[in-house]
C-alpha cells in the first residue's frame, strides 16, 4: 500500500526519540483510533456519568454493547443477521450480475443507449423505494418482493457507472488500436474493459450502499425478521439500545463490503500511479 507521507529528505535526519518516530510511522491509524475513542468516551460519559439526556433517547456504548450481547445470546441476533444477509447478498449479487453487463452494453452500443436513456434517467433519479407498495401487490410479502427492491435500489448506480466508464474510454487509445487494425472485439477487450474497471468498481461501491438501504426499507415495511425489522420494532418500543445495535450492524456490513471491493480493486490496480498515496 502506498503511504501518503512525502518521502523524507536524506538531509533531514534529525535524531528523533522513539515515541516520535513511532507516531510518525503510524500517524494515520493513531489519529483515526484516537477520535473514535474520544467519541465513544464522551458518549458513554454523557449517557451515564453526567446524564445530559435521558438514556432512553441517547443510550450509551455500554448499553448498546449489552443489548448486542443479550440479543446474541438469545439467538435472535444471528437469525436477524441471517435473514438480512441472505437478502443483501442475493439482491446485491443479482444487481451486479445484471447491472455490469447491461451498463457495458449501453456504453458500447450507442443506439441501445439512446433507446433506454429516458428509463434509466427516470429510475436513477426516482426514489426506488417508492415502488415497494407495488412490489408487494405483485409479489406478496415474501422474499421475492424484498429481493426485487434491493436489486432495483442497487442496480442503477451500477449500470450508470459501467455505461459512463465505457463511454469515456480515452479516444486516443482507441485511435492507436485502430491504427494497428485492431478488431472491435480486440479494442473492447484490451482497451474499453481495462479502462472501465475502476469506474465499474466505483459503481459497485455506490450500489452496495443503495442495497443496504433497500434491505432496511424492505424490512421496515414487510418483514417478520431481519436487522431492519429488528430496528423498526425496537424503535416502536423506545428501545434505543437495540436500534443502535442494528445501526452498528449495518455499518459493519457496509464497511466489510467496501473493504472487499477495495481488495478487488487492488488486484486490478497495479498499473496505476498513486499521487499522494491511497486514502
Amino acid at each position: 500500500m502506498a503511504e501518503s507521507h512525502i518521502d523524507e529528505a536524506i538531509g533531514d535526519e534529525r535524531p528523533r526519540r522513539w515515541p516520535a518516530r513511532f507516531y510518525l510511522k503510524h500517524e494515520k491509524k493513531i489519529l483515526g483510533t484516537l477520535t473514535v475513542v474520544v467519541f465513544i468516551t464522551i458518549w458513554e460519559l454523557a449517557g451515564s456519568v453526567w446524564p445530559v439526556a435521558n438514556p432512553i433517547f441517547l443510550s450509551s456504548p455500554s448499553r448498546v454493547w449489552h443489548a448486542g450481547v443479550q440479543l446474541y445470546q438469545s439467538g435472535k441476533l444471528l437469525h436477524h443477521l441471517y435473514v438480512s444477509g441472505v437478502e443483501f447478498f442475493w439482491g446485491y449479487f443479482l444487481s451486479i450480475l445484471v447491472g455490469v453487463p447491461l451498463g457495458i452494453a449501453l456504453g458500447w452500443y450507442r443506439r441501445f443507449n439512446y433507446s433506454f436513456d429516458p428509463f434509466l434517467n427516470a429510475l436513477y433519479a426516482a426514489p426506488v423505494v417508492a415502488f415497494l407498495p407495488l412490489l408487494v401487490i405483485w409479489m406478496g410479502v415474501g422474499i421475492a418482493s424484498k429481493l426485487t427492491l434491493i436489486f432495483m435500489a442497487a442496480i442503477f448506480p451500477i449500470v450508470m457507472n459501467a455505461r459512463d466508464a465505457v463511454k469515456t474510454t480515452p479516444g486516443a487509445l482507441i485511435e492507436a488500436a485502430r491504427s494497428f487494425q485492431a478488431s472491435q472485439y480486440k479494442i473492447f477487450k484490451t482497451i474499453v474493459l481495462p479502462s472501465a474497471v475502476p469506474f465499474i468498481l466505483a459503481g459497485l461501491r455506490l450500489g452496495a450502499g443503495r442495497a443496504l438501504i433497500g434491505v432496511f426499507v424492505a424490512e421496515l415495511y414487510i418483514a417478520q425478521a431481519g436487522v431492519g425489522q429488528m430496528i423498526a420494532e425496537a424503535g416502536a418500543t423506545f428501545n434505543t439500545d437495540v436500534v443502535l445495535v442494528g445501526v452498528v450492524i449495518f455499518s459493519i456490513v457496509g464497511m466489510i463490503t467496501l473493504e472487499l471491493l477495495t481488495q478487488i480493486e487492488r488486484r486490478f490496480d497495479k498499473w496505476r500511479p498513486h499521487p499522494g498515496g491511497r486514502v
Partner: protein
Amino acid sequence: MTVKLETIGLGMQYKRQRDGSRFVALADVNVRVEDKTFVALVGPSGCGKTTFIKIVDGLIKPTSGRMLIDGKPVRGPGNDRAMVFQEPCLLPWRSVFHNVMYGLECQGRDDDASRKRARDLIRLVGLGNFESNYPHELSGGMQQRCNLARALAVDPEILIMDEPFAALDAQTRELMQDELLRIWKETRKSVLFVTHQINEAVYLADQVLVFSSRPGSIRDVVNIDLPRPRPLAIKRSAKFLEYEDRIWAMIESEARQTMQEEVLS
C-alpha cells in the same frame, strides 16, 4: 529510387456543426515519398498536417483524391504503415513489453518470433532495463521510445510520426532526434514525420514538405542536402541555418496571420 507512397489530389472537407458551412482542411495534396527516405512535414499550426497523416495512416477517409502505396491504391489502415502518436497513447495497464507487443497482437502475430522482435526493439530504443515497467513509471522521453518501439514492432514499410517529440523538453528533444536517426539507420523505413519545428525537420529529413494553411496544401518541397550521419553540431553549420531560414521565410507570413486571427477571434 522507387516511389513508396504517393497521394494524388488528396482533399478533405468537413461540415461545420455550427452552421453547416463547409470547411476545407486539405485541398489537392500531392506528395511523393521515395522508398526508405525520411520526409518531414512542416507548417503553421492548424494547417492540416495531422489530418493529412491520419489519412495516410488510414484513420480517416479523404473526401477526394487517391493514395497509392507501391503503386497500388489503398483505403483504410494496413500492415504496411504504423503510427507514432503525439501523445504516447500507451496502454497504462500494460508494461513496456506488452505495450510493444500490442500492435503485433492486434494483427494476430502473437508468437515467439514476435516476442523476440519486441525484445530486440525495446533494446534498440534503449529501454532494455524497463521491459516490465508501467508507462507512468517512465519519463516523457522514455514513453516516446516505447511508442516508437511499438510502431516499429509491426515492421511497417512506412513509419508515420505525428509531432512525437512535441511534449518533450528541449534537451530531451535534441537527444531523441539524434536517437531517432540512429534507429532509423538500423531499421531503414520510409518515414513521414510531422513537426512544427523547422529545425527538427531540417535535421532529420531528406526532404521537407512545407505546408500552407487554409486550405492545407503543399506549398514547397525542399531537398535537404546534408551529409549523413548528422551530428547534432550540424545544426550550427551555415548550410543548415540557410535551410532553416529559407523554410521559415515561407511559413513566417502565414504563421503571423494565423496568430493575429487567433488574437482577434
